[in-house]
């Protein structure tokens, strides 16, 4: 008997991307550069996060014509972003047969109370999280992959590190609790108890965990991989740098060889200017993207 869109079919694609780099692209030309540099997948969006920050306004799903162009240009998986809670954008992306939908805080939220019911879709979803409770709520809603949020479009790795460390250390803490305490932890995390129990026992999320938001250099990629990310998303870090193709290749190489400092050093040589960066600590609260999502 054939079953489509089972949870393991959805989560399985993320398993295939482990150890890889997923790159933000806005058009087919960028997608081709990303694929040729060794990206495991590309993420289609209207503007890269640094431009969303600079230009402001409402950031939405990409024009379908651009997504189709990207799908024709590359053979690697094509992901695309929908606004938080905007299930109609997600329906459009499913109709376009994108391989993964990112319900993303980088776009302007469409619903300030509810996330999309991801169980209702055949296409799998990836969602951002700043801590374990948020990750488990998204998985409870049907997300088949999680990325730590970081602070997109800054080129500042500090928030990515904070979120990744938070998720990983909360997982470790669950491992020290007994059954009664786990029920309390589920309440505190505002997460489903069955998922909390599962994470406590397995000492990992039930889906693949990538890191996003602020990765700008090969060493950044190595850092988050050593902190337990299973792969990385790079947004503005590539196409807002002075030499996107070489930087993309270097970040792929450093992600593969994250445990080998000599290889990370080699990959870091002569890449030109990194993206123009912003120190997250100096941003106003209303400029933060990671706080979107509930």
């Amino acid at each position, binding site marked *: *008997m*054939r*079953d*489509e*869109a*089972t949870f*393991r*079919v959805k*989560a*399985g*694609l993320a*398993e*295939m*991307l482990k*150890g*890889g780099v997923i790159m933000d692209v806005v058009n087919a030309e960028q997608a081709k550069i990303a*694929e*040729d*540099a*060794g*990206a*495991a*997948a590309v993420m289609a969006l209207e503007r890269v996060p640094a431009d969303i920050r600079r230009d402001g306004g409402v950031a939405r799903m990409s024009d379908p014509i651009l997504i189709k162009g990207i799908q024709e240009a*590359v*053979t*690697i*998986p094509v992901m695309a972003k929908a606004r938080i809670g905007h299930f109609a954008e997600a329906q459009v992306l*499913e109709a376009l*047969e*994108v*391989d*993964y939908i990112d319900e993303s805080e980088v776009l302007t939220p469409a619903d300030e109370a509810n996330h999309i019911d991801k169980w209702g879709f*055949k*296409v*799998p979803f990836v969602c951002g999280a700043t801590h374990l409770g948020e990750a488990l709520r998204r998985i409870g809603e049907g997300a088949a992959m999680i990325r730590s949020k970081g602070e997109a479009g800054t080129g500042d790795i500090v928030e990515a590190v904070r979120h990744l460390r938070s998720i990983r250390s909360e997982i470790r803490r669950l491992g020290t609790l007994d059954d009664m305490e786990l029920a309390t932890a589920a309440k505190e995390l505002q997460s489903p108890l069955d998922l909390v129990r599962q994470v406590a026992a397995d000492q990992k999320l039930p889906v693949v965990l990538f890191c996003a938001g602020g990765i700008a250099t090969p060493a950044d990629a190595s850092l988050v991989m050593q902190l337990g990310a299973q792969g990385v998303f790079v947004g503005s870090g590539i196409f807002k740098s002075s030499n996107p193709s070489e930087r993309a290749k270097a970040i*792929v*190489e450093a992600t*593969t*060889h994250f445990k080998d400092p000599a290889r990370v050093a080699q990959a870091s040589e002569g890449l030109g200017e990194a993206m123009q960066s912003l120190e997250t600590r100096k941003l106003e609260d209303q400029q933060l993207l990671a706080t979107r999502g509930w």
Partner: protein
Amino acid sequence: MLEDLGAEVREVRVPADLDGLDGLVMPGGESTTMTLGIQREGLGDPLRDFVRSGKPVLGTCAGMIMLDREHLGVMDTLARRNAFGRQIRSFEEDLEIPGIEGPVRAVFIRAPWLAEYGDAVEILAEVDGHPVAARQDNMLVISFHPEIAGETRVHELFLQGLKP
């Protein structure tokens, strides 16, 4: 999964990692990404030498692609990439595989099938009339992921080939 079955496992990222291995799994992943990685690391010839040494090789999904005529060129097959379509067409179903008793739960993720194959290739299973499992000499290839369904018997078959 191989560790759970009692094997000692090492990830191969550079040619030196192949030294001393008794068998090799070419795993799932993105075949384009893997092809670039093999080129970057100079792994092409070392991998071909390993396969030709006669040691058991298991290729799953992208691994099936990497072994074919157009990639490493060690297996007399031509894989069609993403043959079943995009992720929305990914699926799981039960397969019968010779040498394994009872159905194997096979998870197909943007999976390939064999579009062409030579006389030396034995087809072990088909879906919709297309080969999804095959063997040639020391190489066993499957276009699906048994490990995602917790299915261990294909990997056991591979490990049995390691025994003297």
